[in-house]
C-alpha cells in the first residue's frame, strides 16, 4: 500500500446542519482511501463527535457535489465543493 496523500475539499453547510455544527463552511483534508461521500462522512464522524452528533441520521441529509445533487455513493474525485444540508423546503 502506497503512502496516503491527503486530499482536500471545501464543505458548505446549510439550514439546521449549519446551525448544529456552528459553521457554514470549512476545508477538510481526507485520506486517499476516502473515495466517496459516504466514506467522507464516516471519516468525519470518526474524527470528531460533533459530526457524529449532527450526521446521526443520514436519511435526513442531502448532498450536492459542485452544485449538483448526488447520493452518498458519489465519487469525490476532483470535486471542489461538497454541500451537506437537510431536504430542501423551498417554493
Amino acid at each position, binding site marked *: 500500500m502506497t503512502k496516503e496523500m491527503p486530499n482536500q475539499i471545501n464543505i458548505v453547510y446549510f439550514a439546521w446542519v449549519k446551525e448544529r455544527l456552528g459553521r457554514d463552511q470549512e476545508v477538510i483534508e481526507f485520506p486517499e482511501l476516502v473515495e466517496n461521500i459516504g466514506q467522507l462522512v464516516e471519516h468525519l464522524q470518526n474524527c470528531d463527535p460533533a459530526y457524529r452528533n449532527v450526521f446521526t441520521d443520514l436519511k435526513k441529509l442531502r448532498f450536492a457535489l459542485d452544485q449538483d*445533487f448526488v447520493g452518498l455513493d458519489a465519487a469525490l474525485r476532483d470535486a471542489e465543493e461538497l*454541500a451537506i444540508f437537510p431536504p430542501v423546503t*423551498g*417554493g
Partner: protein
Amino acid sequence: MIKVSVIESDFDAGSEIKNLLALGGGAVTSFIGQVRGDGTLDALELEHYPAMTEKALRKIADKALGKWDLHGITIIHRVGRLRVGEQIVLACTCSDHRQASIEACSYIMDQLKTVAPFWKKEIRQDGSESWVEERQSDLDAAKGWKN
C-alpha cells in the same frame, strides 16, 4: 425566454406576467406562493445555497422547456426574512396552449419544492424557531411527473 431570479426584495407579479404576455403566445399561467399565517407564525426565514440556486432554477426551467412548447418561463424566488402575507415565489409560463402553460407552471412548482436549494425556517410570534420539514406530498407530486 428564460428568466430566473433569486432576490430579497419583493416582486411585481403583474409586470412579470405582462412580460410573458408580450411574447404573444396566448396562454399565460402564473403561480404565486405566499407566507400563510396560522395564528402564531410571524415570518419565514428563507435560506438558500447561492452558488447552486440559479443553476438549479435554470435546470428546472430547461426541463420544462423540454416537456412543453413554451415561449417563456419566469421563476422568481425570494430569500431572507418574509413576514406573513408576503410573496415568496413566482412561477410564470407562456405557451400557445393553455394546458401546456398550466401543466408547465405546476411542474415548475413541484420541482421548486424538491430540487431547488432553499430552506424555510418558521419564526413564531413568541420568538421560537423551527426548520420546516420536507413533506411527503411534495415528494409524491414531484415524482408524478415522468423525470
